[in-house]
């Protein structure tokens, strides 16, 4: 391998350390979780897929409702646990809010028709309990995990990571936005 080749490989290796970078913040309340979601909207690009995980009531839907507000969607986001897929549109944007809580197995998941939305034009896809589809995604995606804070019933810990260089860059940008909005670790 020539000098350029090694440099290139090293650069790629260095970049690879930026992949899956974990960004962890503390949210003091549901309102702060929603605000974090609103800031998250600012780093999104059409075709993005975001998987959300964490216990019941930990803030997944609240976060997404903040993102929707940040994208200019006026409607109230209610839980798609029963309907499985809720679709919101705002001019050309299509926001898919899915919840796989009630689904068992990949057949069930594919039967919902989710595939046509993943990475589609002008579409942003958010999937609660999305770990179930993780291994079948062809594109890079972000993962957000929500946890209760045992010392404070209103507080949550939110961890954000993404696969691929594009998400790596977006998460760095997000980190700055969250820091400026006083979200600490």
């Amino acid at each position: 391998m020539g000098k350029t080749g090694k440099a290139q490989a090293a650069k790629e290796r260095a970049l690879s350390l930026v992949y899956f970078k974990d960004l962890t913040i503390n949210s003091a309340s549901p309102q702060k979780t929603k605000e974090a979601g609103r800031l998250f909207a600012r780093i999104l690009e059409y075709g993005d897929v975001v998987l959300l995980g964490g216990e019941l009531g930990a803030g997944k839907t609240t976060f997404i409702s903040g993102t929707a507000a940040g994208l200019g969607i006026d409607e109230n986001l209610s839980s798609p646990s029963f309907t499985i897929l809720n679709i919101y549109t705002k001019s050309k944007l299509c926001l898919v809010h899915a919840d796989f809580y009630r689904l068992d197995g990949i057949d069930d998941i594919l039967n919902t028709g989710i595939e046509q939305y993943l990475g589609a034009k002008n579409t942003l896809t958010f999937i609660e309990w999305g770990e179930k589809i993780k291994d079948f995604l062809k594109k890079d995606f972000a993962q957000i995990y929500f946890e209760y804070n045992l010392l404070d019933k209103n507080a949550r810990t939110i961890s954000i990571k993404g696969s691929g260089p594009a998400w790596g860059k977006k998460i760095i940008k997000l980190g700055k936005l969250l820091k400026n909005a006083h979200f600490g670790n």
Partner: protein
Amino acid sequence: MQGNLPLLKKNNLKNQEKILILGIETSCDDTCASVVEDGKVILSNVIASQHEIHGKYGGVVPELASRRHVEAIDIIINEALLQAKIKMSQISAVSVSNRPGLIGSLLVGVGAAKAISYSKKIPFMAVNHLKAHLFSNFLEVPEMGPCFTGLIVSGGHTSLYSVGQNWEIKEVGHTVDDAAGEAFDKIARFLGLGYPGGPVIDRLASKGNPSRFEMPRPMIESGDLNFSFSGLKTALIYKTKKEPKILDENNIADLVASFQDAIVDVLVHKTFKACRQSGFEKILVSGGVAANSRLRSMFAQKADSEGIKLYIPPIKLCMDNAAMVACLGYYDYIAGNFSDLSVEVYSRSDI
């Protein structure tokens, strides 16, 4: 809506003795079909998850499981005709839910309805699933009439409606997060009580003391007619993290009874408030959660003390079913409100 209307059969309404509507319902988990005569006589009401259906067709379609609408739809429609002792050629029109619900599921029912409409040259009516729930009681009490407050409370929906003199329906309140039925299901699952959560919690709570644990009544003082149940869900979950003993055998009945009462309290409070505000004297409650025994008794008690007439359909008509879809379709049919073959499905809807 002119477009490609199917050619109407040469049966004009005056001569027709009975109007038979085939109802199809596939908005969420269950595949349902029903034949209803003149909007009030249920000749058949078939739901795929019923034991009898499983037993009869289990061999043909091994998994009549949730959302297997494509596999189940033909069987369920044929079974509805069979049980009604009716041939497809006797059906006047087809009524089907096209919103709100799971898009993939809705498409199966709507596709079947369009196919029947086109091939048999009969009209079809695409109706709102929630509006069908509001009409579910007309199957029992056709003379009920308008001017009532309707609460539709299920796994997927919790909404309050005002139905005026001219049958104009207005949504006056809704959940801002979880539906009540969803709260029951999720907490039951969290507590390891099984699925579906509603009936399990209902049974267990009947043995418990609802005043033992303090549970918030979210948004009860919000001043509006909206609901919120996710705060109640997190309050319970947090409690179990702080005091794990609460999950013990001798506490759990009281825990779920307290939880159930918090939900029922808010539903009763806001529904009667809505009724007072509109000056109506009738309340209708429908949707899967209307099967809950505590809800039925608390609503009845309050209705008694306030002098309000309360209507809650029998349990089978509270759950998702196609008879209510056929009933609503009947009224659309006689008004000539037919749908175009190009009609789409929607995951959410305004009523």
